[in-house]
């Protein structure tokens, strides 16, 4: 047997109150694409951070080409030949591509040389990138290229990718996979973290499955079905979201000719957006990140004001109204960014329950906070949505992404909204939590609410939505029933071509 590139033996890391990794053993060979599978909180991040030198394991050892390997800092990991592309990009909008790449390097060459190298490497790997462009003007896919190119410039032997496709269009995923296969052909190894099982089945030849910090299985994902993989990961049979077909009812939310200038220099302005959602309907709004999703959510939540008649709830104009007035009308929202937008990171779950629940749950009386009711409301959310946390006194940032997302979505659903708008409801959430959230959204529609799901995950939209519309450059296509919609048609809608066809017809 040949010596593996990286071998991990008995790695254990405990945090106060939780064992993140317990006796984890696995290895990655040279030129191998290895998948790391597991629910949120299964210990994938901790493991990867140990490899990248961000944390130090309590016990166990790592071998890099047979030699002991114990990086104290990412610089040491990079020096050994480990590079990592994070799920959340660490880029500065106001700097150009070359400057951003230089900031992430240990010994950046002069910017002119670097720009030439970026051009060279990016075209060699089929990831075209203009080093002079401002990162703020790039799409999510292009931003990811910046991160990947930054890694490739260091000539890595092992590339770690954390949920790389969650922000990409199907076409961009194709390009990324081609690049990854090319890297493999060059003998580089890739550690690929994803919850999209189909991707892992097409890309990876080995998978290590983690559950609650322990390795619970190893397999060749090409030989397993996606369902089997998911069940290995969750440990139980996976619940598929389902619901009966619903007869649509009255229009609950209507947006008419909504125009809104971009709220910031790198925002997107909304142009003539119109749609209506009926009782019992789930409208899926697809589109690549940065095409106006945040702005649309802001315009619906009331954080951004518009012409009074541009947004109506149950026939009443609310475009001019603030978030709480809209909540009073039954229009609730859950934004994409969990920490800092949907929830205050350093506040307890009780306080975060108060954040949107104050009015509808009657948590405030004459301006005074009813501490008991607020705590009880937080506890109800935690119980009903299976949020894994010691209790409502815990601060939001101490929760894993999936658990906080369950809390944030649960907080809105528990308030019995008549219209619910969610942006990226399952971004970075593991399979079972995602299934629970989707089921909750479908139950809500079943009970007569109008639901708008803004998502970059097309599979998600196709799974739960009744109708589909695409956001492109701040414009929204006409909505079409999901039934009978082909991937090609969706691709055209996402590209903004669909509207032109309609005009020609």
């Amino acid at each position, binding site marked *: 047997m040949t010596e593996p590139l990286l071998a991990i033996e008995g790695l254990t890391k405990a945090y106060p109150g939780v064992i993140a990794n317990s006796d984890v053993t696995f290895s990655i060979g040279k030129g191998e694409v290895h998948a790391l599978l597991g629910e949120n909180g299964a210990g994938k991040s901790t493991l990867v951070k140990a490899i990248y030198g961000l944390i130090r394991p309590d016990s166990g050892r790592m071998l890099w080409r047979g030699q*002991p*390997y114990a990086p104290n800092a990412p610089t040491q990991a990079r020096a050994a030949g480990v590079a990592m592309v994070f799920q959340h990009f660490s880029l500065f909008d106001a700097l150009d591509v070359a400057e951003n790449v230089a900031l992430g390097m240990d010994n950046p060459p002069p910017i002119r040389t670097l720009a030439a190298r970026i051009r060279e490497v990016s075209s060699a790997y089929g990831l075209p990138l203009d080093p002079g462009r401002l990162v703020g003007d790039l799409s999510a896919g292009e931003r990811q290229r910046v991160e990947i190119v930054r890694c490739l410039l260091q000539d890595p032997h092992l590339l770690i990718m954390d949920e790389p496709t969650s922000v990409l269009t199907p076409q961009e995923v194709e390009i990324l996979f081609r690049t990854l296969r090319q890297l493999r052909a060059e003998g580089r190894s890739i550690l690929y973290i994803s919850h999209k099982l189909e991707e892992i089945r097409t890309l990876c030849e080995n998978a290590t499955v983690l559950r609650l910090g322990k390795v619970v299985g190893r397999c060749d994902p090409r030989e397993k079905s996606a369902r089997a993989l998911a069940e290995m990961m969750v440990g139980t049979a996976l619940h598929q979201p389902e619901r009966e077909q619903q007869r649509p009812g009255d229009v609950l939310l209507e947006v008419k000719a909504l125009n809104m200038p971009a709220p910031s220099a790198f925002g997107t302005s909304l142009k003539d957006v119109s749609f209506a959602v009926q009782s019992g309907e789930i409208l899926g709004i697809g589109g690549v990140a940065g095409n106006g999703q945040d702005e649309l959510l802001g315009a619906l*939540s009331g954080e951004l004001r518009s012409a009074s008649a541009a947004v109506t709830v149950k026939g009443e104009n609310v475009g001019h109204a603030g*978030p709480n007035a809209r909540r009073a009308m039954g229009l609730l929202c859950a*934004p994409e960014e969990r920490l800092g937008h949907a*929830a205050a*990171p350093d*506040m307890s779950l009780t306080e975060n329950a108060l954040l949107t629940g104050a009015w509808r749950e009657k948590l405030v009386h004459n301006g005074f906070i009813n501490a008991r009711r607020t705590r009880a409301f937080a506890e109800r959310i935690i119980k009903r949505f299976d949020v894994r946390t010691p209790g409502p006194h*815990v601060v939001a940032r101490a929760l894993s992404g999936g658990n906080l997302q369950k809390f944030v979505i649960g907080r809105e659903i528990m308030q019995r909204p008549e219209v619910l708008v969610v942006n990226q409801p399952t971004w970075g959430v593991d399979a079972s939590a995602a299934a629970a959230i989707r089921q909750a959204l479908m139950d809500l529609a079943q009970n007569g609410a109008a639901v708008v799901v803004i998502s970059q995950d097309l599979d998600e939209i196709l799974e739960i939505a009744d109708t589909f519309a695409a956001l492109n450059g701040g414009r929204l296509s006409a909505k079409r029933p999901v039934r009978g919609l082909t991937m090609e048609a969706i691709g055209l809608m996402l590209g903004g071509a669909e509207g032109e066809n309609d005009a020609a017809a």
Partner: protein
Amino acid sequence: MMLRLEKRSQPSKLWNWATPVLAVVLTMIAGGLLFMALGKDPFAAIKLIFWDPLFNPRFAAYSRPQLLVKAGPLILIAVGLAVGFRAGIWNIGAEGQYIIGALCGAAVALWFWPAPGWYIFPLMVLAGAFGGWVWAMIPAILKTRFNTNEILVSLLLVYVAEKILAAMAVGRMRNPDGAGFPGSRNISQYPAAANNELIANTGMHWGVVAAFIAVIFTYIMLHRHVLGFHVQLAGQAPRAARFAGVAPARLVVLCLGFSGALAGLAGMFEVAGPARLISIDFNSYYGFTAIIVAFLGRLHPVGIVLAGLLMALTYVGGELAQMALRMPSAAIQVFQGMLLFFLLAVDVLSNYRIRLNVREAM
């Protein structure tokens, strides 16, 4: 071997309250070294500042009442500032609002002089609060309308207020019977307007009462009322605050207005009581010292009471040290400055823990 900072998953409750104590201890050590460098006995100096004002029978009769006299305005201003600081609204110009409040209060008193009337003092209270509020509204409106920086505007307005004070002391408010000396009539000797001790030899005057009312009011607002929740939300996560329906502009006006009104009140109580009259150098930098008090008290009303008393002690003890040890007056200001410096430095402990890393062989 190296030191490393590791972020805590939750801010440490223990360190949150232990850091002010640690900062005081460090200030005593560094202050002792400073006094040693000045050729004074450090232990005697520290004892003189922190112990003698309270417990030395020679000084206590004078010093103990002075403690409340000095702590009153500091606490009153600091609780107002703390509300804004929690919301991330930085009113650095309390000193200016304090001066304008004092001028407005004095103006009412001087207008009615020498007529009697129960309504004069309450009117002065309203005028003082109003003056401070107006002076704070300038940075508030400039910020909400033109997005100017409230730190800069409020700070620079202090110097404008000082110029107005000087102009008033030698101009409109000068005592016509004062033989041409700058300074107004003695308001503390005008019974209808005087803010004298309520209980003899305690230092307790209306300003101290107002400070304690403000502390209780602020405590309830911050911890029981939805407004306090919005203040903290805006300070910690501005985007989440907008999502919760908090209007940032309204909060700016509210926080600056509240702290300005309290600073104005403090100035008014001071001019009608301990300071006695409007003079060119009437202001004694309570407005700036209150910033230290607010942070030393962890922006918490109860903490601010303790911090205000401690800071008052350094004032009173500092005066003793000046007299008894011939210490320069700047030394005590350096001392107070060090307190804030150490506090901010050790504050890192409440969010981070220090890890000693013994580097292993690779």
